[in-house]
């Protein structure tokens, strides 16, 4: 009885929308053509598989997640190791390093859009004044630079999350292990690979899984910086779903959302199994 309100909320907020999306994915549910709405079986999925934009979006999503999350983890790990060292003003540095994570994605998108601006952006201005370039670079306006630019932005946003999670893990490692390693004459790298990383295994696993799911689903930064363009070069699967949904082709976008959900399940299932085991 006590859990019934929670169950009700979960049912209404999670299960019903998911079931609705699944049902919609089997329908020609395009509100621009309301008279044609009806069951079409696997029609949406067949159309999706034959859609070149979908495959480009899948490819972009893979690059987005692998490069984005991978580098967030790499730099977050280094930052955590630095922040774990005692130094003057460490508290302040820790607080400041959280700012990107605490900033809303929409704001980050707008801020970096202006940083990268090809006419007035501070990055171009700086590089021009330092004589690194002789013409401003339209970072977000050409396919060769647009996607790397938005990936740098998501990396900037995600580093603090990894840093804080790993820092919390680092503080849970017993100092006695490092002292024992010192007595045995272990090098810094040996301590890193034999003590630190194995001790952080669980933290790294959970953090990576969560972040992969979040980054895969993220729309706000890309949408505000490029809208998926130019020439679809920054359109990930979630942005493509959003773009299709906003033109009211709900059946098609639901179909893609179901495919994305299935792809993410590959990542989410180990997480859920681990959570249940621990629970």
């Amino acid at each position, binding site marked *: *009885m*006590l859990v*019934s*309100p929670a169950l009700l909320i979960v049912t209404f907020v999670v299960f019903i929308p998911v079931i609705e999306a699944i049902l919609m994915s089997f329908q020609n549910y395009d*509100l*621009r*053509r*309301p*008279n044609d709405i009806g069951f079409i079986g696997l029609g949406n999925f067949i159309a999706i598989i034959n859609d070149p934009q979908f495959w480009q979006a899948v490819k972009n999503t893979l690059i987005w997640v692998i490069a984005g999350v991978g580098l967030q983890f790499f730099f977050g790990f280094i930052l955590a190791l630095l922040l774990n060292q005692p130094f003057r003003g460490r508290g302040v540095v820790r607080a400041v390093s959280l700012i990107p994570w605490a900033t809303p994605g929409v704001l980050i998108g707008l801020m970096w859009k202006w940083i990268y*601006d*090809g*006419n*007035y952006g501070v990055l171009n201005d700086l590089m021009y004044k330092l004589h690194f370039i*002789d*013409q*401003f670079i*339209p970072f*977000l*306006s*050409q*396919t060769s630079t647009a996607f790397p630019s938005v990936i740098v932005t998501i990396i900037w946003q995600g580093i603090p999350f990894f840093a804080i999670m790993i820092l919390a893990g680092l503080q849970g490692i017993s100092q006695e292990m490092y002292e024992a390693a010192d007595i045995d004459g272990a090098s810094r790298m040996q301590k890193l690979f034999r003590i630190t990383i194995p001790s952080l295994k669980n933290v790294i696993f959970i953090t990576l899984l969560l972040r992969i799911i979040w980054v895969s689903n993220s729309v706000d930064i890309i949408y505000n910086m*490029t*809208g*998926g*363009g*130019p*020439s*679809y070069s920054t359109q990930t699967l979630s942005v493509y779903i959003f*773009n299709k949904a*906003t*033109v*009211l*082709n709900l059946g098609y976008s639901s179909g893609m959302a179901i495919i994305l959900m299935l792809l993410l399940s590959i990542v989410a299932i180990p997480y859920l199994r681990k959570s249940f085991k621990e629970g």
Partner: protein
Amino acid sequence: MKKLFGLLLLLILSVGLVACSSKEVSNSGDGDADTGTDTPSSSDSSDTADSGEDGATITYWYWADNTEYSNKMQEIIKEFNETNDKGITVVGEEYPWDGGGYSETLFTAAMGGGGPDVSSFKLTSTPQFVANGLLANLDNFIADWDDKGDINDNLYNVMKQASGSENIYVMPWNTQILYVYYRPSIFEEADVEVPTTYEEFLTAIEKTTLDRNDDGRTDVYGFGMRGAKGGQEPWGSFIHGRGGSFEDMTTEESIAGMKDFVNLYEQGYVPPTATTDGFNEIIANFKSGRTAMTIHHTGSSAEMVETFGDDVSAFAFPPGEGQWTSMGDTENVIFESSKNKEAAFEWVSYLATGKGQEEWTIATGNVPVSKKVQALDHFQNDRFMKASIDGASYAGILPILDTTTEWINTIWPNTIASSLMGDITPEEAMNTLQEELYK
């Protein structure tokens, strides 16, 4: 004990839900207070309708581009509420335009049964709203309307064309006809006259692209090209300039226009950011002196004059093999769900030909649809309005199909970007644009 606690929790939740419902009603009341009018809440309007439309309250959704326009609309509403002889009260509710998100919000609200009686509207949304039976048919209202002849018949035809039927669902309000802004001082520096033909226009773009100190870096680009969504409107002028059309974008003429467009980018006569430049960028580039020309409507004229004084002027897009400019539009619609349609028509007709028309178009700089308002000195003596009026005879709209929104939002910008950057040829780009618009 557990059961008792559970029941208590459910009771609290129920009370909470009731409280929320009550708050919605009182919020509506608060909204009325904001308009400075003593009106009942919008939820009361249906009750009013049951007892006759005199004294009816109607809700009106609109967007305003800035606070000045927002205040002006509230003034117009207040004036209407105080002066109309039928005791009609309009409750204005402002929503952000949000790059077109307004139309989506309106559609969602109307489909959910929570929309207004009347709303500001864009023609491109007409098929979607009509297909879902959301808009009231205005044929009979207009047929019986004394001011019917004050609006050009061509506009009524455009409204019919938008609905894809012989019925009018959309009430004209004001238009924004695109023209070319230019900087006379840059024209003088480049020794260029105001172009009178399409070819001269292309030459002017080339000549006004300036490297003032010969450092190899372009200081002024001839034209502020808009490659992001919304750019299909100025782009359409290039396509028609070579004799092409939207009906068949795969003809030699249409492709020739596209080649001109791509050539401007490839030759460096437009900023390299053009592939993603939207409204804000083209205006910022023009106002900062980075571009010599750009295309927009009178909505920008006040800020242009504020920036440049007399060093900004305008000309209508010049003729080539063909001639076309985009007629932006803002209309009003009455919703089928409204129980006060007659009162609603009083309000939209006040905006179309009444005092509301004059005040709104003067404040916003938009082109009036009312002939008697167009004849006012204010509109006859303005150089930007003159460029608008010069373009009125060949102004048009994109074909409004159920594919148009997606075509504008994603297909056009991405296809054009691909073509500008050389990933696809102009022919391939035009084939894609044709297929996607008419699929």
